[in-house]
């Protein structure tokens, strides 16, 4: 659930999503759900000639399972806070496992 909450803090920021089929889509993050399905607005595709099917598309819903990376704006991420939160989550998960 940590990354679901994390992505919610990035809403309205511009991100680039790289899919497992190598398409890179840049757009404004509009929504995210528990599966980390992502909705992007005002999209722009890198290497547009290779992916003509997205030329008339303005916003996309991307299934979470096909995402490889999400490139984030560094200025929108509080890195020490995220590190702290991930360690806390990992510790609580380890505690549950025992």
């Amino acid at each position, binding site marked *: 659930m940590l990354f679901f909450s994390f992505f919610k803090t990035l809403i309205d920021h511009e991100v680039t999503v790289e899919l*497992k089929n190598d398409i890179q889509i840049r757009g404004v993050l509009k929504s995210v*759900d528990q599966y980390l399905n992502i909705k992007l607005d005002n999209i722009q595709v890198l290497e547009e000639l290779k992916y003509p099917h997205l030329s008339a*598309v303005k916003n996309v819903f991307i299934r979470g399972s096909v995402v490889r990376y999400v490139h984030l704006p560094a200025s929108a991420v509080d890195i020490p806070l995220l590190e702290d939160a991930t360690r806390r989550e990992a510790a609580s998960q380890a505690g549950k496992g025992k």
Partner: protein
Amino acid sequence: MENLTISDPPPPSLQHGGPGGMPPTLGRPPPPPQQLPAQMFTTAAQLLDLTDKKLMVALRDGRKLLGILRSWDQFANLVLQSTKERIFVPPGTAPNQPRGLYADIDRGLFLVRGENVLLLGEIDLDKDDDPPPGYDLADVELVQSLAKQKKQQDKAREKKKVKMLATEGFEGENLGEILL
């Protein structure tokens, strides 16, 4: 659902306390305090504003469907009306083919199982009638045969790549599936 934004206050039923607040109800725990409307962050909310819009749906097997989204459920199973399948052939597939080609095939009504969906895109109707930049409309049979040829080339290349990676101890993340 109305278009909620994050800046909207939570619905009045979730605010407690304050002047003229409701008396505590017996037998029911008070709802948890919340800053963001949780209903914004569900699969259903994301699909709701795409309903009755013309969409481009990319499937796991590489097919692209264009149709009107009429119904869906929480698994992203979709019903598409007046669906067309669009086939693309990138430039340079055949010799002397500097521009890409595409063709549409009428398919009618589709029910797509959610697991096969890669991505849904809402089509900008202003741009819908223009061919994609660098691509021309061509004869269906020509595009189909070129697409088949291209798929075979890609498959052979992918197979070689997976084989080579396997000798180095890697497993392909797509497991031999071509996602385009």
